[in-house]
């Protein structure tokens, strides 16, 4: 069996398990919908939120109407259009930052788990430090000092978010590398890189993927938190920055709930989609979660001594 058909067989097995998981499918559909909206934003949005427009006072925080189904914001612009365009920033930051986390965490975990020794200890020591330092305060400090560009935000979120991935990969590698097929491969002369590529990576990859989907949701939350606190990229519209502008420019006292509800729902939608998907993937890929001794409804009955079969030879 060649490599390609093995992968395809693995995917078929996976799809068979995934297809019947309603929460997982829901997450996948929700995420796909968000991606479609982000990709086709210019076609879907009624107006271009980046365009300069002349605004009248009565346009500011105008309630929902036929022209603006979700009202207008603090600058008198259409909330729905900004919302549709805002999905782009959230998804770009989410995917890009978690990709960074995936590669850094994967590499560190692989090296620390496979080679171990002094280098492994050193890497895990660094990892411990990253795990302990509270995320948001450090991210605030870094973005405030480095400057609020989209690239900086992606780098900060991605480079602060790899520690859990590294730990996961390391513990997986540690358990896989003791398996017999690795020892056998080594006995017939396979090199380290061959073993990592052909024997360890294929077994670690599924859980790494599940973990990355979860990290996407965390990255999106992180971006929106930073943007809400005024540390987003000022040149782009994101759901977090929409909330920041509405909040700081007194949408609450103006009663303009429409400027506050939609962007928040967008964040919840995407984060929930990734969370559902990630959790289901993890459940499928992690065999330890399958056994459950209280889920069977069969009653276990102790057999009293009297009715046990009598010892033979009497």
């Amino acid at each position, binding site marked *: 069996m060649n490599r390609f058909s093995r992968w395809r067989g693995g995917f078929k097995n996976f799809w068979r398990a995934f297809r019947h998981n309603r*929460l997982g499918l829901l997450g996948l559909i929700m995420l796909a919908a968000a991606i479609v909206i982000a990709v086709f934003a210019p076609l879907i949005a009624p107006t271009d939120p980046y365009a300069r427009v002349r605004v009248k006072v009565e346009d500011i925080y105008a309630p929902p109407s036929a022209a603006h189904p979700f009202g207008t914001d603090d600058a008198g612009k259409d909330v729905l259009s900004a919302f549709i365009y805002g999905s782009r920033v959230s998804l770009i930051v989410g995917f890009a930052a978690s990709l960074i986390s995936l590669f850094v965490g994967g590499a560190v975990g692989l090296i620390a788990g496979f080679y171990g020794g002094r280098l492994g200890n050193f890497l895990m020591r660094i990892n*411990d*430090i990253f*795990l*302990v*330092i*509270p*995320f*948001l*305060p*450090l991210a*605030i*400090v*870094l973005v405030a*000092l480095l400057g609020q560009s989209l690239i900086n935000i992606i780098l900060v979120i991605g480079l*602060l978010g790899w*520690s*859990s*991935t590294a*730990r*996961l990969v390391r*513990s*997986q590698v*540690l*358990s896989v590398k003791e398996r017999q097929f690795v020892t056998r491969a080594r006995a017939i002369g396979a090199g380290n890189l061959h073993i990592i590529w052909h024997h360890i990576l294929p077994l670690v990859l599924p859980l790494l993927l599940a*973990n990355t989907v*979860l*990290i996407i*949701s*965390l990255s999106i*939350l*992180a971006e*929106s*938190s930073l943007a*809400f*606190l*005024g*540390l987003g990229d000022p040149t782009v519209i994101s759901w977090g920055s929409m*909330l920041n502008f509405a*909040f700081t420019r007194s949408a*609450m006292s103006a009663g303009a*709930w429409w400027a*506050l509800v939609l962007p*928040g729902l967008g*964040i*919840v939608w995407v984060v*929930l989609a990734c*969370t*559902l998907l990630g959790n289901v993937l*993890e459940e499928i890929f*992690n065999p*330890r*979660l399958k*056994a*459950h*001794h*209280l889920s069977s409804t069969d009653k*276990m*009955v*102790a057999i009293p001594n009297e009715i046990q079969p009598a010892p033979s030879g009497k």
Partner: protein
Amino acid sequence: MSLGEGEYLVVRGGALALALSSKGNMNMGRRGYVLRKVAGSLLTIFIVLLINFFLFRVIPGDPAKAGLKDPRVRPEMIEAQRIRFGLDKPVINCFKGQMVFEASLCAVNPFDTQLFIYIGNLFKGDLGISYDQKRPVADILRERIGNTVILLLGAELFAIILGSLLGLVAGWKRKTRLDTSALIFSLTAWSLPTFWLGILMFMLGSSAFGLPVNGMRTTGLTYANFGEELADVARHWLLPSLTYAIVLLGQYMIVMRASVLEVLSEDYILTAKAKGLTNFQILKDHALKNAMLPMVTLVLLNLGFTVSGAVELERVFSWPGVGLAIVEAVARKDYPVLQGAFLVVTISVIFANLLMDLLYTYLDPRVKAE
């Protein structure tokens, strides 16, 4: 959710890994374990100190000017400011200001540099002077940190109790309608941006229940006695801490459920069932105790992320805690306060982690072997 060597749980905030590698612990015994953990924490604090010091020294712009708002100030004023904030000294030997190498500075007494003065001052409890408020950062933070603790304490207690009970039931009744709805609730709560839930509660609480949403006390109100003040603070405290409890509840429930699932797949549960114990007995005596262990560790380990949420909620409700101090310091480019607040928060979290590790030696019988 055991993955090979240690337990591992992904929780909001990037990442929460319960790295409880019991293998290593068992070999070393308790004293070695404690010593290693304390040494590790001290090393982490030292590295955080260095990060904190150098990060704020490489930023572009003259920090001496950052404290002066008027661009027309005379050079003597800037020089005086420089001396006042200790910025006239080299950062470390051979380096001044923007980290440019200067051979002439290598002759300077190494203890007369900004780094050593900074570390020395920290030991004296001196975190510098706020650019904006022109008073010691330590004083500002001392007023703030208690407020953050009050906010977090209420939210945590509520979330821990309810979260572990709901998680236990959900894990037990896995794949029933109860479990699914509990899971959907907790996943949704988990997916809510803390600040957005805060905004919703802000609108709901102030319009429907008339609760105060701004700060910690009613401005302009003088209190006749302590009871009156307490009641006023409690009214302000209710919404932010309730908001946070909802967010945390979702997380704790997910973790408890995962932990219960893990425990229920153990063979001793099968044994207990075979002995004829009822499900309630098994849950109470066998599952709850063992499943609580990750929960206990979670609460303290999670503090790093709990603090992150507190920053957001303090911003929404103008709650005068350390988080609000951070946000305000960023807006006003008040670097000493930002630096001090970051340091205080980080060191608190490191101590909480250490506390968790030490507590763990008492809670997990496997660590006791000497």
